[in-house]
């Protein structure tokens, strides 16, 4: 894949192409994935899901998304383990990564930002919060 993020294109008529922004939701809770998917699809993203860090890394190896919503505590590989490996991958600095977790302690939030997350969302969140966070990191 080289260093370039893979992109998906949506054919529009036969002359122009509209770039579709992609979002990977990484969370071991199917319900959280479903809620988050509904929100980011509403913001115009094409969504894929992963249930842990290893699944997410495999996905990113094939298609680097524009945005990653990342849970912290997950089986197999947690969010922090995933983030460190992602940032070492070619093109792994490109996705905007938003931690989305129940951790609310300032030192934990600072730890996540220090590890290379672009922003941090405390659960529970809603569409307005996610939209404003994505807009602050320049993803929408």
């Amino acid at each position: 894949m080289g260093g370039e993020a893979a992109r998906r294109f949506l054919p529009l008529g036969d002359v122009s192409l509209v770039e579709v922004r992609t979002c990977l939701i990484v969370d071991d809770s199917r319900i959280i994935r479903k809620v988050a998917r509904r929100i980011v699809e509403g913001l115009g993203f094409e969504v894929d899901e992963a249930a842990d860090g290893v699944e997410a890394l495999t996905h990113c190896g094939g298609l680097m998304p524009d945005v990653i919503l990342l849970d912290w505590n997950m089986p197999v590989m947690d969010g922090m383990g995933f983030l460190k490996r992602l940032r070492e991958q070619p093109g792994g600095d490109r996705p905007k990564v938003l931690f989305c977790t129940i951790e609310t302690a300032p030192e934990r939030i600072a730890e996540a930002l220090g590890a290379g997350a672009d922003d941090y969302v405390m659960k529970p969140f809603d569409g307005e919060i996610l939209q404003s966070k994505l807009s602050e990191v320049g993803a929408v």
Partner: protein
Amino acid sequence: MTQDDFDRLQGLLASRAGFRLGRDRIHLAEHRLAPVARREGFDSVDAMLQTLWVKPVASLGWAVIEAMLNPETWFRRDRAVFDTFAGELLPAISRVRPGGRVQVWSAGCSTGQEAYSLAMGALSAGVTADIVATDLSQRAIDKARSGLFSAFEIQRGLSARTMLDWFEPAEDAWSAVPRLKDAVRFARHNLLDAPTDGARFDVILCRNVLADVDPAQRGQIVDHLERRLMDDGVLILGAEERIEGDTMAFRAVGGRKGLYVKAPSALSRAA
């Protein structure tokens, strides 16, 4: 709530607050007034309104009015405005003011997110700004002054980095650090009231307020804002708000949504 009650409620809001309550808002009114009725010890909204119409006690009237105002706000709403404020307006005005002090008024500040966003910008830019924030609602002012925001409120518009820089956890909420709290002075004020003193401001923000104002009273409010604004000051409205139809005193700044300066004709009385 009967149609007659609703008509009277509309009249109360228009005359006392200049607030236009749309005809389709009767269900919203019932929903918003139910907690007020409970708090004030009435069995129902209808019972509260009957009492209010017979004996218009000021405190009850204002409690009813406050509940119907539009409290919608969030941190750094329409982000570009805050970058313009901190990056361009503050440094430019500060250079030409005694001691570098800039006077700022957040008019219609609701629960304070706008005022604190301005204060964060000023403190980060190292510009000394006296920030006054007012709202018609005493309940909104009390909340704003507390500097406490829920996890939902604090995350709407603020990055986690900015949140950590300016707020600290306080049980289930987040509390503005003292340096930020001290940077804003909150007070209750009715924009329909004419200025009674000479206080003037370099920047006045009155965003997403006029959109809800009764058209007949918009001109009066804009006139009061104009009298409070320095001749070389800037008025900032909501990104999509226009006042060309209400006043000759201001002209829009090209390319900057919501920014207005005084028109040359409005400067004559200062000469």
